[in-house]
C-alpha cells in the first residue's frame, strides 16, 4: 500500500489561506490586492517523479527562485512592471506585479538533490524525482 498516493496528503501546501473556502472554484490568488500572490499550479505524477507546473507568464528564468530545504519546496519570484510604460498610460490593469510565493511539503521519498526546473511559454516546470517508488527502503528489525 502506498500511503503517499492519497491525493490530499501528497503535496500539502502549508501556506494557503482560505483556499479551501472556495473549494475547487476560485483560486485564492485573485483575492489579494497588494499581498503576496499565488499563481495556479497543477501537480502530476510522471515517470516516477512529481511534476509541478506553475503559471508564470512573462517571467524570465532569473526572476524565479526554486529552493528545497528540509522537505519544503519554495517557489518564489517577483516581476517588476515594465519600465517603458508610464503609469498614466494604463487604462486597464489586471496583471499582477510584485512578489509571489508558493510552498509545498515534499512527500517522503523526494530528495532535494535532483530537482530540475525550466520555464517554457510562461509555465514553470519543476520535476522532483521520487526515490521511494523505485527503491523501497528496508527497515532492519533489531
Amino acid at each position, binding site marked *: 500500500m502506498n500511503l503517499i498516493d492519497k*491525493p490530499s496528503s*501528497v*503535496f500539502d501546501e502549508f501556506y494557503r*489561506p*482560505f483556499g479551501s473556502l472556495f473549494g*475547487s*472554484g*476560485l*483560486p485564492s*490568488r*485573485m*483575492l*489579494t*490586492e497588494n*499581498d503576496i500572490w499565488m499563481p*495556479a*499550479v*497543477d*501537480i*502530476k*505524477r*510522471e515517470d516516477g517523479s*512529481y511534476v509541478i*507546473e506553475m*503559471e*508564470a*507568464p*512573462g*517571467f*524570465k528564468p532569473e526572476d524565479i527562485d526554486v529552493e528545497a530545504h528540509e522537505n519544503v519546496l519554495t517557489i518564489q519570484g517577483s516581476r517588476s512592471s515594465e519600465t517603458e*510604460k508610464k503609469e498614466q*498610460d*494604463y*487604462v*486597464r*490593469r*489586471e*496583471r*499582477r506585479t510584485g512578489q509571489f510565493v508558493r510552498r509545498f511539503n515534499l512527500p517522503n521519498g523526494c530528495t532535494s538533490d535532483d530537482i530540475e526546473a525550466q*520555464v517554457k*511559454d*510562461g*509555465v514553470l516546470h519543476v520535476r522532483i524525482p521520487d526515490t521511494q517508488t523505485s527503491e523501497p527502503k528496508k527497515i532492519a528489525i533489531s
Partner: protein
Amino acid sequence: MSRPTTEQHSDSTRAWQWLMNGWHALRDKAVSALTYFSPASESDATTSQRWGVLATDVSEHKDSVSVELELPGMKKTDLSVEVHEHSLLVSGEKRFSATRNEGSLRVTERAFGKFQRVIPLPCKVTSAGTQAEYKKGVLSVTMPKDRSRSPRSIEVRGQ
C-alpha cells in the same frame, strides 16, 4: 497546537479584513478577467478548472493602443486575434500536455479548454498595421489608432 485566545481573535479579524479587501479588489479590478474555459471533453472537465484568470493590461499611447494578455502554456497556432473598431477579441484553445491523464493528477488549479475574451479599447483602432506577438506566455497586441474619419458634426434640431 494551542494558542492564546486573543491571538486567535486578532488572526481571524485580520483574516476577515484580508478577505473583504480581496473581494473589493476582485470586484473593482479583475472581475472581467475571469474567463470561462470550455473543456474539450467530459474527462477534461473533471481534471481542470472551468474558470481561469486572463489577466490583461491595456495602455494607450500617442498613436497606438497596446494590450497584453497572460496566456501561459499556449501554442501560437491555437490563438486567434480579431481587431474590431473599439474592442479586441482574443480566443483560442489551451490544450493539455500529452502526458496529462486523470490518474496522474494530484493538484489541478489551472484551466484548460476553449476560451474567448472581448477587451474594450479606449478609442477607435484599425487592424491595418496591428502587430501581435506571443512570448513567454504573454500575448502582446499593438494597434494603431484610427484617425481616418474626422469627427462627424451633428445638426442640432429644434423648434
